[in-house]
């Protein structure tokens, strides 16, 4: 079932396109040698171009160009051999040149696509274009009653604006699209994809229509900086538009802002107030020419992309689609998984990574990459489950404590005294004592009441205080009862 909004007058379809601004991972800025290091003292990473000094001139950072080419290739897109930098003119205090150097009519990357997973299977989302542009500085309004401050450290940092076709039809699809895009950018190393630091942010174009009818008027929600907020903003905005139309009003084409506190969008500026940016080719920069050799060289250096990796994971490790998808979302996670699965059964590794480890990380609100958890730490615990030293359930119970201890897995379970009983004679003795206490039930079982098997297992586990190896209990119990 596709996503539809229930209105008073029937069902409404949602049509969206996204403009994702991704900060290019690069040590220096798009047109200057200033550092891009995040978190430096305000205005400490500023070159002449970044502060719009008289006589300053931009010089293209070829590494950023390579990053854009790489990104284009990873999105199955056409690389334009000639692209042009334009000036986008507007006044704002954190825009020191009085214009932003961007690309308008001739972007570096042309049309491409990426594939997302939806509840109805795979869906290809068209990429219209990617262009390179300078980021602006940051205005700081909350430090003083009377003055605003400007930090130009971000001014001139390289951005890729990745524009999608209006192919997205639900908040979930939009979320999947951003996740997939982020996974690809992180995998190829062209963007850190850290939405909290603002190095990935999205403008969402939302419109609604009755299924099959022509496209409605769109509103653009600016600068949404988390996947959750993207979904919330879309949900709110699409309902707002449906209500407007159903009440006989019009949707105005405008730019809106999403307020994460209220979960609402509000008007920022209407179409009539929109800027005339007076784009024209920047005379300081010759056209950007890219030859086939350069494209070919970058193509040959591309790492395994998330989709390829997913396909391989499904084949090599017999993973389910969903599991494979979430494992390849993050390059670090997929490598972590591969380290674990190298010598172990994939089934147990998948469930431990995607369930136990992920919920732990979510609880701690931390990325695996930043967590200092090593694959050996998890692997040691899994080995104890596999060799029967502890049960899966025991392992789950102690998992959080184990992760936070410095002790080796075997030492830790020894200390906790939770070693699993896997000695066959010990288990036989336990079972025999349970069976002796329940002679009538043993008779019932032998007469065909096989459901009682579970009861016996439960009694044995209870008797052992949960330490008995469940597989062994099953096996020995079966033997003894069949005698």
């Amino acid at each position: 079932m596709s996503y539809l909004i229930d209105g008073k007058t029937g069902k409404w379809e949602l049509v969206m396109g996204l403009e994702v601004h991704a900060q290019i991972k690069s040590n220096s800025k798009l047109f200057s040698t200033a550092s891009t290091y995040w978190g430096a003292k305000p205005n400490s990473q500023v070159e002449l171009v970044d502060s719009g000094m008289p006589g300053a001139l931009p010089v293209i950072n070829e590494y950023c160009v390579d990053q854009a080419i790489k990104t284009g290739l990873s999105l199955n897109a056409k690389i334009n051999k000639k692209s042009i930098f334009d000036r986008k003119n507007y006044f704002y205090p954190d825009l020191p040149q009085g214009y932003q150097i961007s690309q308008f009519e001739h972007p570096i990357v042309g049309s491409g696509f990426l594939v997302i997973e939806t509840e109805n299977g795979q869906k290809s989302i068209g990429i219209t274009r990617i262009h390179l542009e300078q980021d602006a500085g940051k205005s700081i309004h909350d430090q003083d009653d009377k003055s605003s401050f400007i930090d130009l450290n971000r001014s001139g940092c390289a951005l890729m604006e990745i524009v999608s076709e209006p192919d997205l039809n639900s908040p979930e699809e939009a979320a999947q699209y951003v996740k997939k895009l982020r996974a690809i950018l992180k995998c190829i190393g062209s963007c850190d994809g850290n939405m909290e630091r603002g190095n990935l942010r999205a403008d969402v174009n939302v419109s609604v229509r009755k299924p099959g009818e022509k496209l409605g008027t769109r509103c653009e929600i600016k600068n949404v900086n988390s996947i959750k907020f993207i979904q919330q903003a879309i949900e709110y905005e699409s309902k707002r538009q449906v209500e407007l139309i159903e009440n006989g009003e019009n949707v105005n084409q405008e730019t809106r802002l999403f307020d994460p506190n209220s979960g609402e969008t509000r008007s920022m500026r209407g179409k009539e107030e929109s800027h005339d940016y007076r784009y024209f080719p920047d005379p300081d920069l010759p056209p950007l020419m890219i030859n086939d050799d350069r494209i070919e060289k970058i193509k040959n250096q591309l790492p395994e992309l998330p989709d390829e990796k997913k396909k391989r994971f499904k084949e090599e490790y017999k993973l389910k689609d969903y599991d494979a998808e979430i494992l390849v979302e993050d390059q670090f996670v997929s490598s972590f998984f591969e380290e674990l699965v190298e010598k172990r059964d994939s089934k147990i590794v998948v469930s431990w990574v995607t369930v136990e480890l992920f919920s732990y990380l979510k609880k701690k609100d931390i990325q695996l990459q930043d967590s200092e958890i090593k694959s050996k730490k998890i692997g040691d615990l899994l080995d104890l489950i596999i060799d029967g030293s502890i049960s899966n359930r025991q392992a789950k119970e102690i998992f959080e404590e184990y992760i936070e201890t410095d002790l080796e897995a075997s030492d830790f379970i020894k200390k906790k005294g939770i070693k699993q009983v896997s000695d066959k004679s010990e288990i036989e003795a336990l079972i025999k004592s349970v069976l002796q206490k329940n002679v009538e039930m043993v008779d019932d079982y032998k007469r065909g009441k096989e459901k009682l098997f579970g009861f016996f297992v439960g009694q044995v586990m209870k008797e052992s205080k949960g330490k008995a190896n469940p597989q062994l209990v099953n096996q020995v119990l079966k033997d003894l009862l069949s005698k």
Partner: protein
Amino acid sequence: MKDLKNLDISTAKDYLLKKEVSSLELTNFFIERIEESKLNCFITHTFDDAIEKAKESDKKISSNEEIGILEGIPIGMKDLFCTKGIRTTAGSKILENFIPFYESTVSKNLLNDGAIILGKTNMDEFAMGSANTTSFFGNVINPLKSNQENNKNLVPGGSSGGSASSVAANLCMAATGSDTGGSIRQPASFCGLVGLKPSYGRCSRFGMIAFASSLDQAGPITKTVKDAAIMLQSMSSYDEKDSTSSRKPIPRYLDFLNFNLKGKKIGLPTEYKVEGLNSEIVEVWEDTINFFKKNGAEIINISLPHTSFALPTYYIIAPAEASANLARYDGVKYGFREKSDDLQDMYECTRAKGFGDEVKRRLMIGTYVLSAGYYDAYYLKALKVRQLISNDFKSAFEKCDLILTPTTPNVAFPIGEKQKDPIEMYLNDVLTVPASLAGLPAISVTGGKNKNNLPIGMQVIGRPFEEISVLAAGKLIEDCRGF
């Protein structure tokens, strides 16, 4: 005592090396002259620095150290070139107190070659003007006077009026200029000097305050053609800080002395016989043609069919680029600020008070021609016509080696004239603008004088990066004119 007043650079260098004159004597000589001068050639004096540098040069010369090609030579620096630690205003109130912390490549090259900078020369505000009457620091007076209107002060031409006037008045030995549509050649012509606009890309634009980036080009204003070659040698360089800077190898410009014009074809564009071209200028043009004939050059008629479109094309492209280039002067970061509690108001008042009328006029024209709905009709069309003008020259240079025209349609006129109608002022550039649009090297050398003893400049235009042949042709005019 040597005659220091009428020295050219090569003679002065000779004196310096023979230790007949010291750089300090030379520098003090010009400082005194500047202090006595009432022509308003300089916006800022740098006498203390100059004296220090002159002493260093003398030390180098006396200890037989390696010296630069301009060692100990006092020059003027157009106030468009950013000079480290020295106020740089571009002739504007908006930069009245701006002190750069960086050095333009052109001034750095000259300093590295031993030149002594006496001060920053006056100029039309942001190089917009043809009479040096738009400077915030007052108009510059031409040292030359007409025989007839004896006491009337004449304009020195513009925008490099301070540079031209200071060289003509022997306040310095040479000066830098910048030429966007004629700003070196026209004042050189009005002041009886040599003005050389090199090929676009020959001198770095880094640190040169931008007017129209695709046209701006630095060059020298000198007393002789040989001095122009020496100055250009120092000023030109490939600069990785300027993306439009040329990587073409730089020849030894003094080799022009061995360049033989015999058998070379000199083209006379029929379209340059423009309406309003002064008959005395036509006479000097004819005399000059004869100089070339006598020296074995072949004279041919050529056609540059799109010449009449050059001026309107220029007055669309240059203001368009300027409207973006001057957006950075917004009162936020440096320079003049009109205080206000409201941001928009601060912008408007700062720019209203900080810029003069001519600058404002051009910014409005530039903003207009780039606006939505007008871009195609004006800016885009102008770009196309510019290409046609370029093509005109390309085909002309298949038939001839050099093009000979007058530099200006008129001689120097009294201050205050041509002020009512901006178009009348713009017509001063009608003969110089085409070579600017095509990025070609062009020189202006005095070919003769009118009956009032005012100089008439002849312009020689060459193929891209063929400054040597242009210099050789200039030298021929200089040698033949008889004064």
